[in-house]
C-alpha cells in the first residue's frame, strides 16, 4: 500500500491564490494558472499519495480536530505536515446543518444581512445579539490571549504528532514564522494578496523537503 503524506493547515497549505476558485475569480490564477502547489511538490518528491486536509480561514481548533479525526487512518511510514495558523480563530458548529465553521476576523466586517456566519437561523434578533457577543469574545479573549493560546495549541498538536512518531510517522509542525520569507502574489501583481506566488510555493516546498529530510520536526516562532 502506498504511503501517504498528510497536510493539515489554513489557506497557506491549501494554496489560496494558486488554486482555481480559491478565491473565486482570483486575479493571479487567471494570469498564471500553471505551477506546482508546495504540498503537491513535497508529495511528489517523497513519492507519496497526497492527502489535503486544509482549508482557507481554518482555525487551530479545526486544524487540530482534523488531525484527530484522521488519527486512525495515518499509518506507519506516512508523513504528517501541520501548519499552525493565527491563534484567535476558533471553531463553532453551525446549528442548522451541524457543519464545523471557523470564526475569523473577516466575519465581523461583513454586513450582517449577507454574513456567511449565521448562529441562529430562527431568531434574527437573537442571532444579531449572539454575533455581537462573539465579536467581544473574539477581541477580549481570543485576540487578547493570542500568545498564550498559540503556545497551548502548538503543544496540543505537538503531543499528537510525537505520539504518531512512536509509530514511525515522520512529521513537521510549522507556523507563521515562514510566511513572509517567500514571494507573495502581491509581490508579483500588486493586488494586496500576501498568499504565496508560484515561486513562493516552490521555495517553501524546497525548505519543507529539506526540513523533513533532515528530521527537523518543528519550525516555530512563539511571539510574546
Amino acid at each position: 500500500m502506498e504511503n501517504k503524506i498528510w497536510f493539515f493547515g489554513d489557506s497557506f497549505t491549501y494554496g489560496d491564490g494558486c488554486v482555481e476558485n480559491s478565491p473565486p475569480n482570483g486575479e493571479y490564477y487567471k494570469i498564471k494558472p500553471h505551477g506546482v502547489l508546495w504540498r503537491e511538490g513535497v508529495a511528489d518528491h517523497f513519492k507519496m499519495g497526497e492527502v489535503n486536509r486544509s482549508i482557507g480561514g481554518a482555525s487551530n481548533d479545526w486544524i487540530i480536530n482534523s488531525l484527530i479525526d484522521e488519527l486512525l487512518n495515518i499509518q506507519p511510514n506516512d508523513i504528517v505536515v501541520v501548519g499552525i495558523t493565527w491563534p484567535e480563530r476558533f471553531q463553532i458548529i453551525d446549528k442548522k446543518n451541524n457543519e464545523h465553521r471557523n470564526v475569523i476576523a473577516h466575519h465581523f466586517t461583513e454586513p450582517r444581512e449577507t454574513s456567511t456566519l449565521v448562529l441562529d437561523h430562527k431568531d434574527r434578533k437573537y442571532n444579531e445579539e449572539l454575533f455581537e457577543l462573539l465579536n467581544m469574545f473574539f477581541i477580549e479573549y481570543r485576540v487578547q490571549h493570542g500568545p498564550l493560546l498559540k503556545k497551548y495549541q502548538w503543544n496540543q498538536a505537538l503531543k499528537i504528532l510525537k505520539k504518531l512518531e512512536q509509530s514511525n510517522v515522520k512529521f513537521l509542525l510549522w507556523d507563521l514564522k515562514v510566511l513572509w520569507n517567500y514571494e507573495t502574489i502581491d509581490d508579483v501583481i500588486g493586488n494586496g494578496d500576501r498568499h504565496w506566488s508560484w515561486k513562493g510555493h516552490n521555495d517553501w516546498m524546497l525548505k519543507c523537503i529539506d526540513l523533513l529530510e533532515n528530521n527537523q520536526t518543528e519550525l516555530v516562532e512563539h511571539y510574546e
Partner: protein
Amino acid sequence: MNEIYRKIKEWFYRRNRKKIYKKKIEELNKRDNFTYKH
C-alpha cells in the same frame, strides 16, 4: 439572554470598546488576507 446582553452592552459602551474593536478587526482582516481585490 436579554438581561445578560443588556449588561454586556452597558459594559461595552462604558469601556469605549466600539472604536477599539473596529480598529483591531480591520488590522486582523488585513493580516488575514481578506482585504485584497479578487
